[in-house]
């Protein structure tokens, strides 16, 4: 077993004093069951090669972009929109009669004159052209860095456009410099969806289906949502709204009509989950659809919440069926990966979600971290009251909602809810650290230098991260898998997804290419000498 404390010290040693002091607080060596304090969601130090992106990436890229039938106009110079075009793999199929804009990229392509004289007019004109050319169900406008600085009032432009064209136009002030990472953008997106979209279309009582669920923080990367819904439908649930993978505008507007919110990615959507509960009385449950056991537990938890005998027995039936279909495959891949080690450094939830699945194919996660998680994503939500808000976070609007007297509806009696809270992860998330093994390391905002150092020291068999790390790690002879894009594979969620992940991981670790990294003449001692001397070697 490696002495992790020594390793951490060694890593920190190479830093200039100020950087060392800062980074020290973002690294925790888990030595026992206790959950230590970790610093997170604070500024990245200038000069550090970080993996983090910006608020715009979190708002438009993550939360808003997947909505299928909206024209998503990025107000700014061309690049910001260009890089978010088709790169995130949020899949979507439009319903009969709806439009699908997922393969399109829209931008106002601001020019110097717009920067000097303001871009409001151009934005107004762009919205007009979007309406005339595409006639979409709704439009979003996302502001990028320069927009906030020159003072364009995108909200005013949006409001006027709404009046003029009679469709929703949602404006997001998600300039990249806000907050300290994508996380600020999630929050900005959550606020707007809550204020202006969710709750605007009621489903009449007679049309409501029983056991209606929303899946929050699920973006249908690689088709995950389709696989999750397949299983939920089989049991008898009605998936009303997914936020925001494979969703249309109206799905989101109807979300308040469901019976329970399931929260997959806590970081990107917990604000909405909380606010829906306050405003409409619908609780949320932390779920994890990744891995066999997590998936089964999640399904059982949902059934327990509804407490319906049929549902509970169907749940067991479906779990049994699905498990029996995959168990041979999983055993096969486990055999290939057993005893290997993994590291996970991903966004704000996957670094936690995938640990169970890795465990199921015999791999221990020895190091994990989030790119833009908050302390509650690490330490659990109990820590929220103790989190000190710094200036960067305070600048992000915090909205409060109130009980909607007309639409508020207790889904289950208050006493029963309290009882259930004791056994189910209702309105609660215990965080990543609780699930990490002893002598593992947790690093927040892991950077380029630290990645290189931990890989060199611990030589895992699997490094799950993004495209910015992937090739550097692979140059070191270690398989690195993109956990944002699944290396263009998927789905990875649910039972069938678990097999896909196991198959890809086993292939990645065992692909014959690795055996060729060192050429034979560097591995074997070469026979020196002339041909006459050949007999000596015999």
């Amino acid at each position, binding site marked *: 077993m490696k002495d992790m404390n020594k390793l951490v010290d060694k890593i920190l040693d190479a830093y*200039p004093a100020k*950087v060392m002091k800062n980074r020290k607080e973002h690294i925790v060596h888990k030595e026992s069951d206790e959950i230590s304090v970790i610093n997170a969601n604070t500024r990245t*130090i*200038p*000069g*550090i*090669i*970080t993996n*983090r*992106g*910006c608020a715009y*990436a979190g708002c438009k890229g993550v939360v808003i972009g997947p909505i299928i039938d909206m024209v998503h106009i990025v107000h700014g*110079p*061309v*690049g*910001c929109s*260009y*890089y978010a*075009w*088709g*790169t995130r793999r949020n899949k979507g199929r439009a319903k009969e009669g709806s439009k*699908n804009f997922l*393969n*399109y*990229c*829209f*931008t106002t*392509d601001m*020019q*110097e004159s*717009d*920067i000097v004289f303001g871009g409001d007019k*151009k934005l107004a*004109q*762009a*919205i007009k*052209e979007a309406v*005339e*050319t595409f006639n979409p169900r709704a439009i979003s406008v996302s502001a990028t*860095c*320069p927009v*906030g*600085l020159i003072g364009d009032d995108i909200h005013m432009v949006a409001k006027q456009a709404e009046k003029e064209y009679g469709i929703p136009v949602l404006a997001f002030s998600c300039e*990249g*410099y806000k907050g300290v990472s994508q996380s600020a953008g999630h929050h900005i997106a959550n606020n707007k969806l809550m204020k202006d979209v969710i709750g605007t279309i009621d489903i009449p009582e007679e049309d409501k289906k029983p056991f209606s669920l929303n899946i929050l923080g699920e973006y249908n990367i690689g088709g995950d949502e389709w696989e999750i819904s397949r299983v939920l439908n089989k049991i008898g649930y009605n998936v009303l709204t997914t936020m925001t993978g494979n969703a249309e505008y109206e799905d989101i507007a109807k979300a308040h009509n469901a019976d329970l919110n399931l929260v997959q990615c806590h970081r990107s959507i917990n604000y909405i989950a909380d606010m829906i509960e306050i405003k409409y009385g619908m609780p949320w449950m932390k779920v994890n659809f990744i891995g066999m056991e997590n998936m089964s537990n999640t399904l059982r938890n949902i059934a327990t919440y509804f407490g319906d005998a049929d549902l509970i027995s169907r749940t067991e039936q479906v779990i049994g069926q699905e498990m029996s279909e995959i168990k041979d495959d999983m055993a096969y891949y486990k055999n290939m990966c057993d005893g290997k080690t993994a590291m996970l450094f991903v966004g704000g939830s996957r670094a936690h979600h995938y640990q169970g699945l890795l465990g199921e194919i015999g791999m221990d996660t020895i190091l994990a971290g989030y790119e833009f998680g908050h302390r509650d994503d690490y330490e659990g939500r109990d820590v929220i009251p103790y989190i000190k808000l710094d200036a*960067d976070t305070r*600048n992000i609007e915090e909205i409060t909602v109130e009980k909607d007297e007309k639409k508020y509806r207790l889904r289950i009696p208050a006493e029963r809810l309290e009882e259930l809270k004791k056994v189910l992860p209702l309105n609660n998330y215990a965080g990543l650290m609780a699930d990490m093994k002893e002598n593992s390391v947790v690093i927040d905002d892991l950077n*380029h*230098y630290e990645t*290189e150092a931990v890989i060199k020291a611990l030589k895992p068999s699997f490094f799950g991260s*993004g*495209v*910015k790390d*992937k*090739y*550097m790690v692979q*140059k*070191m002879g270690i398989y690195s898998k993109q956990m944002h894009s699944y290396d263009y594979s998927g789905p990875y969620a649910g039972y069938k997804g678990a097999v896909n992940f196991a198959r890809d991981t086993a292939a990645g670790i065992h692909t014959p290419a690795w055996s060729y*990294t*060192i050429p034979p003449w560097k591995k074997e001692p070469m026979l020196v000498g002339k041909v006459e001397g050949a007999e000596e070697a015999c």
Partner: protein
Amino acid sequence: MLNETTKEIKDRSALVVNPAKTCQPIGAMYAALGIHKCLPHSHGSQGCCSFHRMHLARHYRDPIAASTSSFTEGACVFGGKSNLKTGLENVFAIYKPDVVAVNTTCLSETIGDDLNDIILSTKIPEGKTVIYANTPSYQGSHVTGFSNMTKAMVTHLVNKNKLIGNGRLAVIPGYVEPSDMAEIKRMFAMMNVPITMFPDTSGVVNSPNTGKYEMYPEGGVTVEELSDLGNCESTIALGSFSSEAAAFELEKIADVEANVLNVPIGIKATDDMMMKVMEITGLEMSKELEFERGQLVDLMTDIHFHYHGKKVAIFGDPDIIIPMTEFVISLGMIPKYILTGTPGNAFEKAIGKILADAGIEDSKFKAGGDLMELHQWMKNDPVDMLIGNTYGKYISRAEDIPLIRLGFPILDRVGHSLFPVVGYKGAMRLIEKISTAFLDKYDRECDDDDFELVM
């Protein structure tokens, strides 16, 4: 696919749909990687840097390291000075590059940070260098960014005290692949002409897997070589959009004659480059290269019927698609539409002349256009093939025509970073691609009784 793109074309003046260009800093970052032991640094908020690194990493499937000033809201109010100063200090202390190449972003440009001033007031370690380029994305495109950073190499690094000639040519390859840069170097070597190529990303972004990660791989032009550029005999700048600014700068400060040519894509542009080299050096044509040229002509005559007379739409960066247009004409194809997202009259002039010289009349071409418009042209009057970057795949699928991947970025196929498209060899590779694409489509779709063994 792209079901919302109508045949009917409505005028758009503000909304760009499916752009055919991206922003300056990514081009600057790519150019900077062509200096040995250089770390590109993005002065702005970290999102831009993250996007640029991601896109380059996807295109090259290689590590792309670059640091950022990580602006927060405070930096926007007070300016980015302290972010850059701290940033540079940390970069030198932790990542130990020889050179840091700073590019600005829309944000730092809008704020108006004075890079020169900030860098002068920063303590740079002994023997280390910082260069910078202004790269606001509300002007030009990624090509402009490449050009600006390449020019910055001359401005900031060339030793102005001219000594004696060093017997070398300065060669600026343009915004092309590392494989193309390597091929250009090979061609000059065959001619026995010593050159200094800048930037030179070969070996940097197509580096080998050795089981060891090198943050600064072996490739790239060195600072010493750059500083000696003023002693070169002459400059060959390939591609006016990406290379001429640096060539003129070198002419201005060190009196090295600038020769601006097309990027050698296709037989004519390659011939032009060779003629120029012979003219400048007085040397004779290399036997091996002449042999390769002969092979190319042989291929062109032997299989012209695979593609002759086919109509093609071409989009991408001016320096790539100007010679490509010329090349498809030399293959007997008809370039029906030629479009770039990069603004500039020079593009329309160059294409206009190529078409006029070839007597082609009803083709459309445009600078500063987008792919939605190109697609709509194609819907109104179809073509047989599309040539351009990966983003063309949506149109190619919608219209069921083959896409030949050429230019930046290519996110869904490999080969571009390893095999060149420039020179005679590159031209043969392009012909192979074009011919194969047509024949594969035919073989897939034809009736059984039309399915043939020999083609």
